[in-house]
């Protein structure tokens, strides 16, 4: 396990003889990766050329390639006001919260599902927790509205009076929304994510548990010292991947669920929604492209750093 990658000695074979051997050893594997690699080249890398749009004053009559270069002017709107601080803060804080809570909730669900003896019910629960993920964000927005509407909402009309509390104007009070959005996000994602961890748990070699049981370990001890450590690689990779997208957010959650309510913007505005709103009428593809580049570059740097740290701890868990 401690052995580091021995790749370099294969990478650039010194003699033709060795290259020949190398092809014979890995030729099939290379053929196997070809479809995926070609697909990514065409579907993902080729369009990356379009990043130039972020630095262009797009004029369709001239064509995109011939449009004038304008340096970083398209990026300006992202940093002009103190909105830049607010949207960046919101995006990062929400994402960090989500990354942590999603993993905790999903792992809990997965571990508990795996503990259940009644397989039929376990499967039933598993299907049910997936449901929220299947409902479109706009509809979730409707459903949340049916809870929180001032005039017809279940909260204001039924629950708050029952508790002897007065009406709350949910869609203008910023203080509730960090919690509401977090709850909705966990509600929506946990069941979906738990599938991954469940697959990881199911994949653990049962011999470990059998040995532990013979040694008299309790279930809880087994979970703590077998299950969790063995799914750590999966948790790590999921976290790393999420960090890469830390400047991106679930647009539907932040735009549709608060119903685009203006007074809530200080706590609901994230980079994606800010860009969307700014450019709705301007329709400037240069500016939206600039926002995408900014998000990607920051995510990239963060992931390089995190990956470096992970590699220091355990190189097998690192992304690359």
């Amino acid at each position, binding site marked *: 396990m401690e052995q580091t990658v021995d790749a370099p000695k294969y990478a650039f074979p010194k003699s033709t003889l060795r290259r020949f051997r190398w092809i014979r050893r*890995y030729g099939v594997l290379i053929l196997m990766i070809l479809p995926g690699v070609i697909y990514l080249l065409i*579907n993902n890398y080729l369009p990356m050329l379009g990043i130039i749009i972020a630095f262009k004053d797009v004029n369709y009559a001239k064509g995109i390639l011939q449009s004038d270069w304008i340096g970083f002017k398209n990026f300006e709107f992202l940093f002009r006001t103190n909105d830049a601080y607010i949207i960046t803060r919101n995006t990062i804080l929400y994402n960090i919260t989500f990354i942590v809570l999603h993993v905790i909730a999903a792992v809990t669900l997965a571990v508990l599902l795996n503990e*259940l003896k009644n397989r039929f019910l376990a499967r*039933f629960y598993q299907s049910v927790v997936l449901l929220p993920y299947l409902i*479109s964000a706009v*509809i979730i927005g409707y459903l949340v509205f049916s809870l929180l509407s001032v005039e017809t909402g279940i909260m204001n009309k039924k629950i708050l009076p029952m508790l002897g509390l007065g009406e709350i104007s949910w869609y203008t009070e910023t203080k509730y929304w960090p919690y509401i959005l977090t709850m909705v996000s966990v509600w929506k994602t946990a069941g979906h994510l738990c599938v991954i961890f469940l697959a990881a748990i199911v994949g653990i070699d049962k011999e470990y548990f059998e040995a532990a049981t013979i040694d008299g370990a309790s279930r809880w001890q087994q979970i703590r010292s077998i299950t969790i450590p063995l799914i750590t690689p*999966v948790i790590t990779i999921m976290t790393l991947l999420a960090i890469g997208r830390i400047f991106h957010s679930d647009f539907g959650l932040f735009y549709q669920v608060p119903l685009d309510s203006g007074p809530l913007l200080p706590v609901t505005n994230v980079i994606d929604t800010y860009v969307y709103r700014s450019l709705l009428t301007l329709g400037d593809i240069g500016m939206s492209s600039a926002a995408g580049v900014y998000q990607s570059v920051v*995510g990239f740097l963060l992931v390089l750093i995190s990956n470096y740290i992970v590699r220091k701890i355990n190189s097998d868990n690192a992304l690359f």
Partner: protein
Amino acid sequence: MERTNSRTQLVIHLFFVVVSAVCLLPFFLLVTSSITDESEIIRNGYTLFPKHISFAAYEYLLNDASAILRAYGNTFVATVIGTSVSLLIITMLAYPLSRRDFPWRKSLSFFVFFTMLFNGGLVPTYFVYTQVFDLKNTLLALIVPYLLLNGFYVLLARTFFANTIPMEIIESAYIDGAGEFRIFWRIILPLSLPILATVGLFQLINYWNDWFNSLIFITDRKLFNLQYLLNKILLDIQFLSTSDLGGNQAEMIAALPKEGVRMAMAVIGVVPILIAYPFFQRFFIQGLTVGAVKG
């Protein structure tokens, strides 16, 4: 294998009953609001127990049954083909990346990962799909863009292969004279049913819920997919009520289906996945135990 005692079982069940309620209630709300009388929704909001039940929304959908059936068909074809092909490509790419002895492992992983961070945006993607490859208004446009989506599933599958399949198995098979592809097909895949089911399920959901490709690449109404029909309405309502479009705005809004219809469409969009789900659950058992292979 020993599992927990029955009291702990009961507690876990109670926990899941609560969790299920939290997940199911909104869904029931969705279903009941699709059969609630339209004016009642607007007067009183959604309710689990409507006073006046009305199937008008579903009747409205039946009006255009042929369009909906066709959209179902398009979605179905794209989902089945897309999910199978993408499973194949994903696992074939992920497996070599999981092999610790594969020379380009780290840099190729990076190559895959990079696609998760950077994309050129919609315009160049559209250009590639419509001008370089003529996929506009073809079913392929509903399939190809999501085949790998981005590197996420590849890296996920890679991690699973690397962590659940001991290198010794591969080595011993190799020494026994099995070719790489045979090892992959006969040993790796059967050992990895849970992750195949996971990725398959996720891709199934991605394809089933996709409407964006339909929005961007399809203008021929014969090729629209199911979720597009719903999302088009939802987005139009949002757009029309937040845009300033002058004297004829009232007609534009009046042309859109009512709330009950939107709910009904959401319901008919979810149900097929719920039916397909148990099928995937069957694979959430350890394929062959690793021990058996080793032995």
